[in-house]
């Protein structure tokens, strides 16, 4: 078997003989993770080629940002990656702050870290549940893990609800700081929740890793080499699962990440199981960071631009900047060009899911149909972020 990448998304295996069947997986499919459409060419059960089709969830986010002010857009930015809504608003306000050279108070920086790490836990929980459901079926053991994971995610959404008032799309960040401070008693509730999750993560590890069927499905499947990972430009847990030690929180610290001690998990195997292991360790590291941030949370203002009176009050001077944060799925970047008014002149998103998805046509051919969904799930794409 030789893999050969052509400039298009089509990768064909050197496979001879047999009748071929073209099967459409998506955009309406139980495990399409949104609206992904994969046109699979099958020989029996083996996939020989994949055409990846995206664009079913395009909502003109970049154009929309030109019509909304710096105060309004963070709430809309949430909708790009709706599973990790805190991440994209974080990147957007960081870009605006970089152009305007706006200071962010230490307390706001810590609050942003707490929100981002809780979001990472919530997002990884959803990933764990849906991935297991892809492999185990909605009417099997996968659904059991899914419901457990959703139960834990609910606890985090409850925390966000008492912090922001919303459960899915937050609008927590604003240029110069955060919009809300933590309410009284929130820190204790947060500590309790993450302690429970910390303990439950070990349970899930036991449930999955002591299960030979799970290992048979995850190990040695969807192998991404280090070279391929670097060439395609995948990010986040996928990249770290292929042996590249790159995490923006460590290599380009932002928002006081340098104050916290945590490890960046790296696995060298490059298969679905390695990606799973990376995320499982990230759960624990995120919990560690939240604990440290709650312990060290400084007093002071939560925004350097308090008392927002109108939506057009924030004006960013002329200039451009690129800001990036490490989201649950990898590097989320925002390139912003400001023209001195209350709205950006142009904005460009760099979504982690989009670049991660590009690796699928390279790794799927040669696998069985059942592995397609396992690999797709291990990539953890969110289509709001792919199509924007």
């Amino acid at each position, binding site marked *: 078997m030789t893999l050969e990448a052509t400039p298009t998304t089509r990768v064909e295996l050197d496979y001879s003989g047999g009748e071929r069947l073209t099967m459409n997986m998506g955009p309406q499919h139980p495990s399409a993770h949104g609206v992904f459409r994969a046109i699979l060419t099958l020989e029996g*059960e083996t996939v020989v080629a994949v055409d990846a089709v995206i664009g079913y969830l395009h909502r003109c986010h970049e154009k929309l940002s030109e019509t909304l002010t710096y105060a309004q857009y963070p709430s809309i930015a949430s909708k790009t990656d709706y599973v990790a809504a805190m991440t994209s608003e974080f990147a957007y306000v960081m870009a605006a702050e970089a152009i305007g050279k706006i200071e962010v108070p230490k307390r706001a920086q810590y609050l942003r870290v707490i929100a981002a790490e809780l979001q990472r836990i919530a997002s990884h929980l959803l990933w764990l549940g849906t991935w297991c*459901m892809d492999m185990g079926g909605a009417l*099997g*053991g996968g*659904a059991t893990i899914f419901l457990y994971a959703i139960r834990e995610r609910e606890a985090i959404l409850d925390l966000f609800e008492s912090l922001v008032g919303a459960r899915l799309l937050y609008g927590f960040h604003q240029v110069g700081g955060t919009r809300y401070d933590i309410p009284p008693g929130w820190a204790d509730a947060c500590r309790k929740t993450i302690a429970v999750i910390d303990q439950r993560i070990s349970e899930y590890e036991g*449930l999955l890793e002591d299960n030979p069927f799970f290992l048979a*499905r995850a190990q040695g499947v969807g192998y991404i080499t280090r070279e391929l990972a670097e060439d395609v430009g995948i990010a986040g847990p996928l990249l770290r699962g292929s042996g590249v030690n790159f995490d923006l929180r460590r290599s380009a610290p932002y928002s006081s990440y340098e104050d916290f001690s945590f490890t960046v998990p790296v696995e060298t195997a490059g298969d679905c199981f390695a990606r799973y292991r990376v995320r499982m360790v990230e759960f624990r590291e995120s919990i560690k960071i939240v604990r440290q941030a709650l312990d060290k949370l400084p007093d002071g203002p939560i925004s350097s631009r308090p008392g927002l009176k109108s939506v057009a009050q924030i004006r960013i001077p002329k200039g451009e900047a690129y800001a990036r944060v490490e989201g649950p799925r990898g590097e989320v970047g925002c390139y912003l060009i400001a023209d001195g008014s209350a709205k950006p002149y142009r904005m460009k998103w760099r979504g982690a899911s989009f670049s991660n998805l590009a690796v699928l046509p390279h790794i799927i051919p040669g696998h069985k149909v059942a592995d397609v969904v396992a690999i797709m799930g291990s990539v953890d794409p969110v289509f709001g972020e792919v199509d924007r």
Partner: protein
Amino acid sequence: MPAWITALIGPFVVLNVVIGLVTYVTLLERKFAARMQSRIGPYRVGPHGLLQPIADALKLMMKEDVVPTAADKPVYNLAPIVFLIPCMLIFATIPFAPGMGVADLNIGILFFLAVSSMEIVGLFMAGWGSNNKYALLSAMRAVNQIISYDLPFIFSALVPVMLAGSLKLSDIAAAQAGGGWFILYPVIGQLAFVAFMVSTLAAENRVPFDILEAESELVAGFRVEYSGMKFALIQLGEYAHIIGSSFLGSILFLGAWAGPGPEYLGPIWMLLKAMFLFLVLTWIRWSFVRIRVDQILTLSWKFLLPATLTLLIATSFVVVWRAGGF
């Protein structure tokens, strides 16, 4: 009363009891799975959701019956019935208590195994007749899987047959009277029971072997195009088959109707044992992830088939040795 009417009473009662049982077994499974997943399960229809199966059946009856334009219509329409009939026929030879059953054939277990393998015809007709790629792939998998797992299923079921020395199900039950259940038979009994449960799981297309349905890959597999009553018939057949296998398992390994208390409690004990086996299958179903088609075939041909064959040969030696052979 003419003889032909009396001959029909037994099958009529058994058929209706089985259909009623299947309806309520779905509720049992849903409640059991809900407990495993820290949920409540059906709760709204009737007290504790007890009327939920009735509501489900009514809903399925009232649904529109959609036939795809491109389907092979006679095959498509016939498939649910062809699938259901063998699944119901397997109850014909099962004795629920001494002398209580439709027909206690002297080749009872052979009839059971032969008829239960025939469900593959209905499956394949459904998959082929739907004229749908998902359904076709599922039908291909069905043929692969059911043929692969019928042999271990038969071999593991033959172990109690050899120990009892009869193909008649009531004789097998009688051979275990007095607490000598075949699951308690040293080594052979336990191994045969495990092999029987694994191949039952596979023959019934339950997770982790549910590659036919595989809703995350093939949406719903061979029944993706079915709706309304035809879908209900397929579901009915599937659950009837599982319950039939559970009854068979309790006759072969768990001493059938043997249990404490007076003799008229026999059918109750039988039902409890069958439900226990059903819950074990359910428990496995809701805790494992599905394995791949090639892994399933590997497991069957490279491990389960040689293992059950060896077990069968070992059993024959034990039987001859006990009878004073050699």
